[in-house]
C-alpha cells in the first residue's frame, strides 16, 4: 500500500478521473499537466509508476519518457502511456521510447487499476 503514482495529462477531466480512481484504491497520486510539469513535480523523487498522456503541450509523453529513462532515478520506473487507439504504431512508439505498457482510452476504473497492478 501507499504506492505512489504520477499521473500526467493536459486534460483536467482525465487527470481528475485517473487521480480519483487511484486515490480510491489507496495510491498516493501526484499530478502534472504536461511533460515539463511532470519533471518538475518529480524532481529527484522516485515514484512507483507513472501514467502519462502522449499528446501534451510543452513536452509530450514520448519526450517525457525519454527524459525519464535517461535519468537513473527513473530508469526502471514502470511507465504507462494513455493512448486513444489500440493502434499498434502508437503502442510501439511508446514502447520504443521506453514505456512499460499502455492503457487504451476510454478505460474503466477497474481496467486502470488492473493495468497499474500489472506493472507495479
Amino acid at each position: 500500500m501507499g504506492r505512489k503514482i504520477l499521473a500526467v495529462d493536459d486534460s483536467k477531466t482525465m487527470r481528475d478521473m485517473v487521480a480519483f480512481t487511484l486515490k480510491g484504491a489507496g495510491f498516493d497520486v501526484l499530478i502534472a499537466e504536461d511533460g515539463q510539469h511532470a519533471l518538475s513535480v518529480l524532481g529527484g523523487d522516485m515514484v512507483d509508476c507513472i501514467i502519462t498522456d502522449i499528446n501534451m503541450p510543452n513536452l509530450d509523453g514520448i519526450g517525457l519518457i525519454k527524459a525519464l529513462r535517461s535519468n537513473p532515478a527513473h530508469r526502471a520506473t514502470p511507465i504507462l502511456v494513455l493512448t486513444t487507439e489500440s493502434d499498434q504504431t502508437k503502442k510501439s512508439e511508446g514502447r520504443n521510447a521506453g514505456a512499460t505498457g499502455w492503457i487504451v482510452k476510454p478505460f474503466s476504473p477497474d481496467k486502470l487499476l488492473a493495468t497499474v497492478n500489472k506493472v507495479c
Partner: protein
Amino acid sequence: MSEQPTGFDDLAQFKQTFFEECGELLGDLEIMLMDLQGNPENATTDDLNAIFRAVHSIKGGAGAFGFTQLVTFAHTFETLLDGMREGNVPVTLGCVEELIRATDILCDLVNAAKENANLPDNHGAEITAALVALTASGAGAGAFKNNLDANEDPKIEASDEDEITVFDVWFKPAAHLFSNGSDPIMIFNELQTLGQVEITPDVSGLPALHSLESEESFLAWALKVTTNRGQVSVEEAFEFVEDDCGLVINAATSPDFPLQIRDIAVAAPVNSVVTPPPATPLPSATAPGPQTPAAKSPSAPTATSIRVDLDRVDQLVNMVGELVITQSMLNQLTNVEEGGVQTSNPDMVKGLEQLNMHTRELQESVMAIRMQPVKSVFSRMPRLVRELAAKLSKKVTLVTSGEETEVDKTVIEQLADPLMHMIRNSLDHGIEGPAERREAGKPELATVNLSAEHRSGRILIEVSDDGLGINRERVFEKATEKGLVPTDIKLSDNEIDNLIFLPGFSTAETVSDVSGRGVGMDVVRRNINNLGGRITVNSTPGRGSRFTMSLPLTLAVLEGMVVAVGVEKFVLPLTSIIETIRPNAEHVHTLVGQGEVLSVRGDYVPVVYLSRVFAIPDAAEKAAGGLVVLVDLANGRRIGIVVDELLGQQQVVIKSLEPNSPHISGISAATILGNGMVALILDIDGLQSLPQHDMSRKKMTGENGGRGQTRASQTETGKVEQCQSVGIEKEVRRIMEDQANLGVSIPSQYGQKPEQAAAE
C-alpha cells in the same frame, strides 16, 4: 495481485469538469482556427499540434463517458488533423474552413451530450465525408483508419469460459526488457490472478559472471498456467512485452481433476510457486513495489491552479466587505473633522493607515479572484456570426478585440445573452446582403466589431457594424404605430435611435427565426440594467450602428456618491450622475400634471424630491437655491434629484435587501457607511415613477393615530397620511437589527433618530 476495491464506477461527477473543459477547448479551437484561416500557409507544427490536442482531449474525455457519437466524430476530425501535422495533408484555406465547420459539429455533439439529447446519426455526415476525403487525399486512402478500435478488451470466446485449460508457456524476454521498466515478476503475478502457475526458470542463457551485464535479462521461463479464463487472458498478461520477447503459448489438455481456480489464485502467493525466484540481477528493477520504503519527501506541488466553489469565494468577498466597513469605522472614529476622537499616538495613526492600505489591497485581491477575461463569452460569437451569415446569405466577418479584459464572473455569465442578441440583431437588421452592399459602394464582406476595454473602473463593450444603421423613419413610424410614443412628439435623432430599446418594439416586418421572436432590445436593456450597466446606441444612416454597453467590473461594490437628505443618507451610483447644479428660481417651473421641471440649458428635466418620495422631514423643500443632482436614466432621459448635501464619493459594499425585505421601489440595495449607519442605495430608474408627497403643502390631517411611532407623523412638517417612509423605515430597522445580530456594531445614531426628531 488481488482486485483492488474500486467502488468508483460512477464517473458522472467528472462530467461537469469534462463539459467545462470542452467549453474551453472548443473556444480555443475556434480562436486557433480563426487565426489559421487568416494565413493558412504559415501554419506551424505547434499550431497544428495545439489544434490536434484540443480535439484529442475532447475525444479522450468523451470516450470515458461513453459519448460514442462524439468519439466517432472527434476521431475522424483528429485523423485529418494528424495528417495535417504530419505534413501529409496540405494546410489550405479550404481545408481550414472544413475544420471550422467540423468544430461546429463537434460543438453540437458536445452540447447534445451535455443535454443528454440524441442527434440524428447522420448529423454532420457531409462534414465527416469531407474530412475523410481530405485525409485520404493526403497520404493515400490507406492512411485513414475509421474503424475506431476503441474496445481494447477482445472478448473472450464463450467456449473458452469456464473450461479449465492448462497452457504451456515459453517466455524468453529480450535482453533490454528492464530498460522499459518491465518486470517478469509482475507478469507472473498477473498470471497468478488467472489460476495456478508453475514457473520453471531456464538459466541456460546466463553468461559467466565476468560478462554479465547487470541491466540485461538473460533468463527464460517455462510456465504451466492452469486457468479457466482462456488463452486470450494468458496472452494479455504478456501484452506489454510481446514485441520484446520470445513467447510461445500452447493450450495443453484439460487437467485430470477440476480445480477451484479462484481459491488457488488467492491462496498461492507467487513466491511459493516460483522455484527458485527469478535471479533478477537488477535491484532497481524490482525495487518499485509494495516493499518500497516510504521514505520519500512530502509530495511535490501538484497543480498551478485550483477550482474553488463559487460560494466560498462569495463568502470571502462578503467577509472582506465587512472588514472594509469596520476599517472605515475605525477611520472615522479617529477623524476629528468627522467628530471622532483625537489620537496623539503616532503609532496608532500609522497602524490605521497601514490597515487602510492593506484592507484595500485585500479587497482588490479578493475581487480579482472572481475576475475572468471576457474571452469566454467572446469566443462563442464567431460561430454565431458564421452560422447566421450562412443562414441569411450575407458575408460577415467578426473582428474581436480586448478579449483579455477581465470582469466579474457574474457579469460575464449574464453578458452572453445580451451580446448574442445584439449580434443577431446586427446581422439580421443591420447588415445588408452582398448585392445591396455592392450597390451602396461598400465591400461585400461586412464587418462586425466586438470589443472590450476597461474605462474608469468599468468595462466598456461595443458591438458595431458597418451596415445600414438605424432607419429612423421606420423606427419612429413603428413606435407611433404601436402607441409607444405619441405621433406629434418631436424627438432628436438620438432619441429616435433609442426607441428600439422600448418594450415591445421590433422593426422586423416578419418574425424571422434569427431575431425578432418577440423579445427585443428592451430585454437586452433590462438585462444590462439589472447588472448595473447601461446601453446606448449611436447610428449613422447608411454607415452602421454602434451599441455601447458600460458595465460595472463587479457586483459586490459600487462607486457611489453619498448624499444627505434631512438626517437620512443615500447613495447614488456615481455612473448615473451627470452633474450637480444649484438652480435659480427662474430655472424651476411647475407644469400642470407633471410637477416641477428644471430647465437645464434649454432642456426640461423632471425634479424628484427625495424628501417627498421617502417622506423625510427637515430636508430641502425647494429646488431653487438648493442642490440638484442631475442623473441619467437607463432610457436616456434625465431627472434632477434634490438633496441637502453631497457628503462625498465613496466605494460602498453592496448589501442586498432581498433576504430581509421584498423589493422596495426606488431602492436597489443598502450599504453600511463608515460610521456604521445604514444608507440606502437609490434605484434611480425606479425613482421617477414614485409618487411625491409635497410635505410643505400637503399638510394632511388624516388618521395618523396608529402611526404615532413613525418619525414622519410626529414632525412639524406634517402628519403624512400614507407614505412610503413607513415601509422603508421598518425595513431599514430590520436590516440593522439583523446586522446587529450578526455582530456588526451599529452606533445608536440611527436608532435614536425618532427620539431626536421628536425632541425637535
